[in-house]
């Protein structure tokens, strides 16, 4: 049983700052910002920003059951009140000087048999029509449509003999007893709403059925049996969508297939009291249940209409809590987006609340970020912080792709320069590849070993010899044992210390280091090759060079004092003071000189020293027992850190993929990963799903940046290294006469491009061209512009009319191939040489074939996109 004082809220249809609360009486409020100059003492805070002021109270109508606000602009504050006895009274709030309003206020509409008025609905178009839904009476109608402009006409009523004006007050001239329409005999009406798609149609929630009454033919009605008959309401955005409810369940109906609900929402444990579509947002339904402090929202924005039987509708359900207390009722604001006023179940506490829209967020393929919230779209791009953008891997990759990083396949080492040349890891990995390539060229047969990494190379090491060499330029026998083997030699070469040849001479390497002014490193390498004099000479050179560091001379002096006497002061001081040297190479030099034989941890684990130098060092001074252990340890370290320098050790093996995986996890640099791994063996490494994933992602990135030329180059490069990645031909040109593919018979033609079919791609004009089908010898179609048969190279055909264009096409040699391609519109099927078509559509929108009005180019969604890289 409904409580008589259950509050409800109605927004003024025309004043966005006014609403009425109805419980036992009607209260008109004005909402405004708090703290404004007009704030009065009586203002009730509704939110942090807004407050309400009570403008007027109306307690003239007792036993109120339902209220509806007159929809027209004037009179502005006219309300219809439905009472417990079924009477409908027009009343108003506040003063109105409108004469029309004065005439209407106080007017009463009385049904033949008294019973509760459950619902009221003004016709949205013909605002004189007011529909009232009443409880059941055995002899009466439950839907009465009153004409508020009608005058009381006693003659009409007296016509019925049964009327007796005794106890009931029909003497007043303001009482109307004759409805314009009477519908739903011997039935009960619980809810009403006029349909927006046709204002002559009234949807009514009757006892156990929903009925649509048509005022043009009141003897007919469309109805569907259902329990969900309460609170019928039409979606203001989708006029065929209706919501109704029964107890805890909301049913959504599509009036176009009014047989059963198109969907029912999750049932709530408590009965629903209000269901309302948001007027400012498409497909948002708010529901309230009894004794609840939350409002449940159902977002049907992305639910297809009509909802198909097969598809599972997508509804996003969530709830909001506008206030702490239990909610009596709520009302959406008519124009302010997603805003509502909520009134508490007790004490008329009001809250102004805006439902926050869910945010959807998207990264662009460049560095900007966009998010949508409600009707607003925010674009966020980093400004000022140049460094931050530069550090961003996406920006880096994009810049690198633009500078053709990875595309120099002849001089692989140059790629690190293309990448910007600042990253030592990249440099290292590319230098290594370069070295490998050199080896490859020279050795040919040892390919497998070369790519398998030093880790595997040293494992296969055998026949190691040990030698104790003298310090260069000194007679003293060194007690440092040095190891030699063919594999160790290969490793040294891969580390870049020695070049190919029987003599293991580091001099070339030293000179190149000197050239690059890497004095400390050069000195260290010289020292490790037991040439202490050369080391001192290098340091000296470094000190005296332009902008050289004079401290290098001091180091040279310290070095020259070297003694192998174990207990000397020199040894003692150097082994402790070396740690204060900032340059790691200087530091490891003294570590080497002060180490016990075979215990070179001070050198081997100095992480600031390049991996290849440490590995080369290890290959020279670690025994067969020590070396693999050290290499394994270092490999694992590199793999964990995702340090690209470690590729030297792992090679492009599965180990290498593991290493690259942690590198990609750390940096997101799929670009380097893709290029590196393409070099790996097609069998094992390229088939690794991780590698395929990097490659696909890199291609997608290039697509997203519209770097289509780069993408194509990458694909070509990839196709060369991994022939299995080449896509099969997907489009063939078939002869109109015999239906056979003409490309098929010329299978020697390399496949080029995707989505295009081409024929006669050879740029050479001298080559003979096939202009007829090789199968049936019938001529091939003609280009719509030059009228030459397909297959004829464009450079051969005389372009009539536009001599300028001819020059253009012949000059652009590169383009000539593409210009020869045959292309056609998928819509009108007209076509011709790609070059001709492109130039035609530069100035025209319609198809070049006369009488064909097809707007071919506009239909081509990708044809209008421009690549952002140049070829």
């Amino acid at each position: 049983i409904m409580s008589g004082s259950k509050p409800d809220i109605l927004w003024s249809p025309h004043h966005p700052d006014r609403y009425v609360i109805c419980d036992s009486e009607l209260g008109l409020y004005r909402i405004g910002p708090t703290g404004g100059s007009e704030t009065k003492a009586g203002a009730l805070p509704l939110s942090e920003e807004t407050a309400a002021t009570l403008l007027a109270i109306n307690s003239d109508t007792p036993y109120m059951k339902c209220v509806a606000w007159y929809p027209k602009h004037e009179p502005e504050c006219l309300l219809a009140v439905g009472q417990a006895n079924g009477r409908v009274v027009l009343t108003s709030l506040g003063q109105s000087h409108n004469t029309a309003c004065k005439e209407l206020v106080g007017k009463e509409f009385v049904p033949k048999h008294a019973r509760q008025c459950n619902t009221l609905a003004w016709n949205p178009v013909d605002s004189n029509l007011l529909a009232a839904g009443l409880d059941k009476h055995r002899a009466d109608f439950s839907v009465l449509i009153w004409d508020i402009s009608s005058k009381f006409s006693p003659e009409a009523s007296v016509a019925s003999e049964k009327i007796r004006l005794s106890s009931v007050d029909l003497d007043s001239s303001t009482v109307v007893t004759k409805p314009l329409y009477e519908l739903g005999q011997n039935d009960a009406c619980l809810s009403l709403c006029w349909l927006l798609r046709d204002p002559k149609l009234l949807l009514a929630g009757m006892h156990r059925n929903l009925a649509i009454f048509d005022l043009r033919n009141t003897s007919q009605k469309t109805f569907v049996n259902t329990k969900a008959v309460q609170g019928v309401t039409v979606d203001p955005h989708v006029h065929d969508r209706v919501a109704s409810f029964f107890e805890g369940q909301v049913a959504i109906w599509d009036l176009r297939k009014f047989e059963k609900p198109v969907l029912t929402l999750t049932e709530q444990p408590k009965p629903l009291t209000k269901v309302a579509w948001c007027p400012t947002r498409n497909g948002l339904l708010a529901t309230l249940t009894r004794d609840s402090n939350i409002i449940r929202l159902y977002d049907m924005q992305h639910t297809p209409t009509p909802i198909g039987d097969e598809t599972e509708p997508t509804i996003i359900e969530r709830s909001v809590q506008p206030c702490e207390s239990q909610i009596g009722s709520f009302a959406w604001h008519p124009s302010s987006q997603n805003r509502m006023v909520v009134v508490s179940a007790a004490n008329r506490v009001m809250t102004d609340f805006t439902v926050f829209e869910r945010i959807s967020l998207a990264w662009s393929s460049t560095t900007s970020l966009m998010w949508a919230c409600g009707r607003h779209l925010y674009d966020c791009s980093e400004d000022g912080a140049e460094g931050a953008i530069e550090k961003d891997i996406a920006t880096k990759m994009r810049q690198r792709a633009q500078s053709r990083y990875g595309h120099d396949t002849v001089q692989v080492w140059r790629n690190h320069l293309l990448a910007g040349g600042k990253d030592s890891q990249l440099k290292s990995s590319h230098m290594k590849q370069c070295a490998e390539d050199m080896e490859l060229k020279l050795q040919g047969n040892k390919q497998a070993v070369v790519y398998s990494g030093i880790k595997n190379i040293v494992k296969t090491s055998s026949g190691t010899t040990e030698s104790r060499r003298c310090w260069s330029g000194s007679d003293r026998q060194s007690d440092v044992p040095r190891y030699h083997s063919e594999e160790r030699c290969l490793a040294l070469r891969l580390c870049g210390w020695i070049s190919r040849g029987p003599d293991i001479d580091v001099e070339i390497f030293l000179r190149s280091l000197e050239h690059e002014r890497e004095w400390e490193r050069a000195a260290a390498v010289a020292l490790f090759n037991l040439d202490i004099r050369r080391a001192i000479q290098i340091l000296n050179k470094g000190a005296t060079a332009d902008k050289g560091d004079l401290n290098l001379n001091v180091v040279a002096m310290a070095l020259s004092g070297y003694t192998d006497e174990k207990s000397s002061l020199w040894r003692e001081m150097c082994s402790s003071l070396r740690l204060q040297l900032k340059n790691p190479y200087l530091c490891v030099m003294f570590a080497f000189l002060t180490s016990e034989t075979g215990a070179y941890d001070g050198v081997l684990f100095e992480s600031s020293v390049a991996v290849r130098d440490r590995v080369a060092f290890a290959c020279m001074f670690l025994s067969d027992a020590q070396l693999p252990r050290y290499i394994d340890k270092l490999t694992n370290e590199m793999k964990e850190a995702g340090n690209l320098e470690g590729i030297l050790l792992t090679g492009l093996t599965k180990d290498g993929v593991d290493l690259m995986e942690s590198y990609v996890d750390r940096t997101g640099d799929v670009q380097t990963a893709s290029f590196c791994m393409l070099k790996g063996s097609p069998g094992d490494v390229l088939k690794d799903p991780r590698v395929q994933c990097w490659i696909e992602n890199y291609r997608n990135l290039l697509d997203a940046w519209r770097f289509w030329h780069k993408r194509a180059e990458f694909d070509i490069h990839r196709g060369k290294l991994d022939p299995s990645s080449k896509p099969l031909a997907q489009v063939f040109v078939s002869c109109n006469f015999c239906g056979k593919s003409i490309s098929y018979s010329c299978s020697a033609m390399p496949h080029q491009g995707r989505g295009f079919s081409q024929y006669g791609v050879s740029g050479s004009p001298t080559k003979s061209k096939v202009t007829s089908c090789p199968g049936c010898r019938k001529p091939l179609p003609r280009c719509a512009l030059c009228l030459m048969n397909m297959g004829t190279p464009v450079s051969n055909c005389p372009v009539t009319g536009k001599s300028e264009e001819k020059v253009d096409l012949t000059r652009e040699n590169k383009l000539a191939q593409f210009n020869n391609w045959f292309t056609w519109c998928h819509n009108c099927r007209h076509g011709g040489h790609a070059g001709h078509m492109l130039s035609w559509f530069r100035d025209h929108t319609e198809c070049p074939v006369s009488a064909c009005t097809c707007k071919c180019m506009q239909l081509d969604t990708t044809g209008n996109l421009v690549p952002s890289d140049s070829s």
Partner: protein
Amino acid sequence: AYEPFFVYSNTQTVDGEKSIVLCNLGILKCKFFSLTETPENYTVVLDEEGFKELQPSEHLKVESSIWLPLNVVSNGNASSSSQAVGVTKIAKSVIAPLAQQHVSVFMLSTYQTDFILVREKDLSVVVGTLEEEFNIYEEVGGESVPMLCQDVANALQKNAKEATRPTVHPVLIPQNQFCVMSLDPDTLPSIATTLIDVLFYSNGPKEDAQSSPSRDLDCIKFFSFSLIDGYISLVMDTEAQRQFPADLLFTSSSGELWRMVRIGGQPLGFDECGIVAQISQPLADSDISAYYISTFSFDHALVPEEDIVRVTDMLQNQRKEPAAS
């Protein structure tokens, strides 16, 4: 045009005395409750839920079979040309055919609608009889489910005994005027004391006996209260009505008044069929509206005050030539 037909949950009819009924007036959780006071006794009609709450008593006489209420729901098509409503409207389509099939009916008219109660065992016959003219639905948990009857032919044959000539019962037409009214359930508490007072503590006409002795002979005490599916219906005479606050009770805007025709000289029992038809048929022929309330002992028809003379004549004629129908 088909008309749906509703069947409510099971209902039982009991007869009891003041004390029992009083302590059970609070049973508002049952969906079907009707209490009618007549000079002879109180008649209570209530559903099984309510019956379970009723304390057994030696004063309670229970009609042991289960009755199902039927309710004709108009689908709102073409408002009929006839002004008549209620029992009269369904006299030809429902009541007469059921009488022909020897189905005993118990009528209960309310402000909102007319219930025709039939015995559960007669259901298949009822469905078989009515399905030609109506769509029949069964109400299961608030949902209307189309009802299908399997052995209709059998049931119909079984009931088609040889027609016995219907007994013509004597009628009594008291002088008091009756109102049929309703009430907002929310305001029920505010009239509860008046209601209890009128039902159980005022002796009605007997108290007035001294002031107007003539009334005593011609008026009978009759008061009916029902609360069915949340809807309240009240039938009382104008004397009783005066005790209620005027603005709370719902009635017709024309303030129509009704006169009663009580059917039966001796208690009618529950088995005889065709009693309602006897009255409703001639009323339907003359297009006169009627309420009809059956009780444990007698049946009561209410007809518009202005039509009582026609009705009296009609019934007298019927008694003169009982074979006319």
